[in-house]
């Protein structure tokens, strides 16, 4: 995500998109396929896409893939790895592997929903703020900077502490409140640099409304930044969700990677030597978060062919 590099409006991906709303017959499927291929062409991003795919499949097909139910606690407690329980059992007698598989649901869901909501807010605020001038712009500037500077995790902890045991909905809310500002700032600076371009001036003179200029003319040029901030926000959301649940601030009866670590620490898995209980959920969180960061390496090429891998610097 290099804000300086992505200022070329006339690119293939963007052309396809802007052609899209002139004839309604142009299929969005082809646009998505093309975007996918652009990302796929970058080796690092390819690994990311594959990893993310695995986790999404795990989440969707959890009931089929998991050997036991996620909350089934009818097994012996704190068992080591065995053929029946590949990753052992928890101190409450649940199958660890099944919990890991079901846990993917919460992380993928929170990452997707919170990432999407943060990005929508970031797009709305970032674009209108970049287009506005005068006092309104200054006020938004101050608010966004405030949200950027205030450390997010302590703010989340404080809000979550007031909204006692709110579950996943509460966590999504808290993550969105603290997570939109970064994307808004990146999108705003790009809007500012685009608004002085000739094609925007032309649109102004042809009498288009400001809303149409911002969302129809300027927005398509920022595809890669928007997709980039989505993955950035998702990564942050997944890590924040795990952190809050690890502190016991979510609903600790939900089966998720964060709560697994919470129970592992609180049932002294460290002392019993069940390192898998600590290792597996954390590894999954890291891998899921890494997959998104890796995809972001390929996103730069979406609206700027010069940034595609192998291009000259």
């Amino acid at each position, binding site marked *: 995500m290099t804000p300086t590099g992505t200022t070329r409006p006339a690119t293939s991906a963007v052309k396809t998109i802007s052609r899209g709303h002139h004839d309604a017959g142009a299929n969005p499927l082809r646009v998505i396929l093309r975007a996918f291929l652009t990302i796929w062409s970058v080796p690092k991003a390819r690994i990311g896409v594959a990893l993310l795919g695995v986790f999404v499949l795990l989440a969707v097909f959890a009931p089929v893939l998991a050997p036991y139910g996620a909350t089934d606690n009818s097994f012996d407690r704190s068992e080591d790895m065995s053929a029946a329980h590949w990753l052992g059992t928890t101190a409450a007698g649940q199958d660890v592997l099944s919990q890991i598989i079901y846990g993917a649901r919460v992380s993928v869901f929170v990452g997707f929903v919170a990432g999407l909501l943060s990005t929508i807010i970031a797009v709305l605020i970032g674009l209108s703020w970049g287009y506005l001038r005068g006092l309104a712009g200054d006020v938004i500037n101050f608010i966004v900077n405030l949200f950027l500077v205030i*450390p997010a995790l302590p703010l989340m902890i404080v809000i979550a*502490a007031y909204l006692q045991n709110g579950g996943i909905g509460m966590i999504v809310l808290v993550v969105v409140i603290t997570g939109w500002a970064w994307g808004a700032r990146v999108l705003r600076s790009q809007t500012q640099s685009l608004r002085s371009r000739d094609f925007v001036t032309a649109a102004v003179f042809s009498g288009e409304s400001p809303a149409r200029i911002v969302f129809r003319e300027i927005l398509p040029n920022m595809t890669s930044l928007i997709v980039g901030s989505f993955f950035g926000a998702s990564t942050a959301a997944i890590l924040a969700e795990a952190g809050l649940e690890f*502190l016991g601030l979510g609903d600790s009866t939900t089966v998720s990677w964060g709560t697994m670590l919470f129970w592992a620490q609180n049932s002294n898995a460290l002392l019993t030597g069940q*390192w898998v209980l600590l290792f597996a959920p954390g590894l999954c969180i890291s891998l899921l*978060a*890494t997959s998104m960061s890796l995809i972001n390496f390929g996103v730069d090429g979406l609206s700027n062919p010069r940034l595609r891998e192998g291009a000259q610097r």
Partner: protein
Amino acid sequence: MRYLLGKVGLLLLTLWAAVTLNFLLPRLMPGSPADAAIAKLAQNGPVSPSTRAAIEAQLGVPTGSAWDQYLQYLNNVVRFDFGVSYTFFPQSVASLVGTALPWTLVLVGFVTIVAFVCGTLLGVLAAWKRGTWLDTLPTVGGTFASAFPYFWTALLLLFFLGYVAGWFPTSGAYGSAATPEFTGTFLLDALYHSILPATTILITSLGGWILGMRSTMINTLGDDYVTFAEANGLHPGTVAIRYAARNAILPNLTSFGLALGGVVGGSLLVERVFSYPGVGYLLYTAVVNQDFPLMQALFLIITISVLLANFIVDILYGILDPRTRR
């Protein structure tokens, strides 16, 4: 001078906004802090109105109109009077925060500076040797490590180096026999206890600096003056450090302030894992016990510390880059 005054003005405005946010937060949330304390008491039997009044008076629950409360609150903040802790009852919030703050400041401050310096150097190297293993290894490794949840790195280090290998102490900031004082033995003991938390923060935050520096450095390397310096036949090391890196470090410095918030947040989780007696562990204790005055004060202190650090970076930026002072 105008630059400095502008920055000071902005700092004061941001401080005011943070203080006000801290005032509004508990009032926007459902329930009151005193209700939570009384709910705890109510588990043991009914609470009479007189007991309730006594608790409210003792815990310093504000009365009067919202505006009066706000003025009272501002007055208290200026005098560092944050009331009494619910959990550690007779102790004031201010004294609790005062004991915890130095541990976090030293730990996070020191590690952050080390991570910034190491990460920036590695980033310069990665950009300069673009495409070789010196680039791939730190970039991919950094991306992966910065996706580690702080508390997970902490748990792994604690388990493998603390419990299994037994090389490092597993909790606290100093041995149970020691008392905090400025002697060589105590400082060594504290240093020994801080190795694992410090390593955790270093591992997790290093990647961000490497990636940030690498991307600004690559942009700088494309500039004409770098090509010109190369064409002049200057030593490659001189071009990399004195021409490119010197200019590339400036944008990276602005993200220093913003990233600091993330590092501080992460260190809170790290302190929880290692039971390190800093601000993060105290915040955790406050949250678990629903100790709202302590929680609010800690949030305010953490925010103000990050704001001040940002302010210092801004000033430094102005000194390093004369263009911003215009």
